[in-house]
């Protein structure tokens, strides 16, 4: 009896990890596709987007922050906005509920919010100097 519970306790973290991998799979597949697009196809066209962050950067952040379903929905709505009769401008991804440990913020989130993270960066440098 005791052995069985021990075994279950041993197996559970493995199951949980596998569950998380499967749960995050759609999100991670989309992230990989977007990264590949941004690396390979996007440079062929040069910049066409009328917004900051660009549509692909927006999509990447939205899916990172909000997950595959809501992120895709947000990205699709942004694409629908990116037409020649829209003035464009700055249009950030709405804040999400996902939190990251300090210094582990996804790169795309940092790059898409330069105001916030540039201030934090110079702050850190100031403290290091002092």
């Amino acid at each position, binding site marked *: 009896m005791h052995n069985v519970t021990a075994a279950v306790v041993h197996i559970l973290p493995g199951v949980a990890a596998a569950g998380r991998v499967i749960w995050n799979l759609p999100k991670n597949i989309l992230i990989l596709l977007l990264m590949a697009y941004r690396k390979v196809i996007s440079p*062929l066209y040069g910049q066409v987007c*009328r917004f*900051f962050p660009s549509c692909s950067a927006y999509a990447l952040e939205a899916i990172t922050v909000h997950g595959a379903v809501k992120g895709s929905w947000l990205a699709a709505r942004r694409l629908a906005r990116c037409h*020649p009769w829209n003035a*464009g*401008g*700055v249009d950030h991804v709405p804040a999400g509920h996902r939190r990251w440990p300090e210094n582990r913020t996804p790169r795309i989130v940092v790059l898409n919010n330069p105001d916030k993270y*540039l201030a934090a960066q110079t702050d850190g440098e100031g403290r290091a100097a002092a």
Partner: protein
Amino acid sequence: MDFFETIMFPFKWLVSVIMVGFHEGLTVIGLPAANGWTWTLSIIGLVLVIRAALIPVFVKQIKAQRGMQLLQPDLKKLQDKYKGKTDQLSRQAMAQEQMAMYKKHGTNPFSACLPMLIQMPFFFALFQVLSGISSAKTQGKGIGAMSQEQVIQFDESSIFGAPLSSALLHGGATNVSVVVLSIVMILAMTASQFITQKQIMAKNMSEEAMASPFMRQQKMMLYILPVVFGVGGINFPIGVLIYWTTTNLWTMAQQFFVIRRMPTPGSPAAKALAERRAAKGLPALPILGGKKADAEAEAAAAAAVIEQKGQRVQPQRKNRKKK
């Protein structure tokens, strides 16, 4: 029918209906229906329709680029603010401020993502239609709006002895005409792309744009695209190559027109246009031409307008005197 085919179906139908429409029209005016040249002209007609539909987007972009002259001083200020800050985050911050500035002035030099994205399924549909002809023929089916007879007709038609549905690498290597025509079109596409790109770089870029990192990408394209054309050119059927070459030629012609008639402010082409207009005794276009001299002229013009407005107040005084 799987998910992907369901999405592509309406695009395939639209592409084929335009092509068949041109084919019908051309046969009505007396061209032989089964001739390869009639089908070639139908493909060219399809290119014309798609590119003409995109003209408003293009004109919008050109107008926005002309409007850029007005925010040149603000842009300069922004560049000075970020001078020497080459880390990625600072560059992002600069890009963000720049976008905010475009919005504030209501002029944005970029063409937007949606028009580019919409073109993709059309090109893909065209590719599926043209390259699917042979297999549709053997399966005894039609494609989109093309009937079985039209599929057979297309499959059997040829120009210069090269069947429209044959590709160099897929059974066409034994036919000298296919090999020669494929290579000629690959060279034509590469040449037109080189000329277009060189024209833009040499004549239609302001000095600021020439110095930007964006230029590196543009230069890379100069060498990547010919490879893409080459690989595509030996794999794709002649019909697809006709479409591709025509689109490229359209782009080149459009660029020639723009450089001559609506050049980017501050570029050598703009100076050339200003000189041509001066030689003809025409007044200079205020939005084109040099940078500093132009800003001064604009300031003078603005001052003149203010003066005029001041003078226009006078009739009111006369009215008052009458009372």
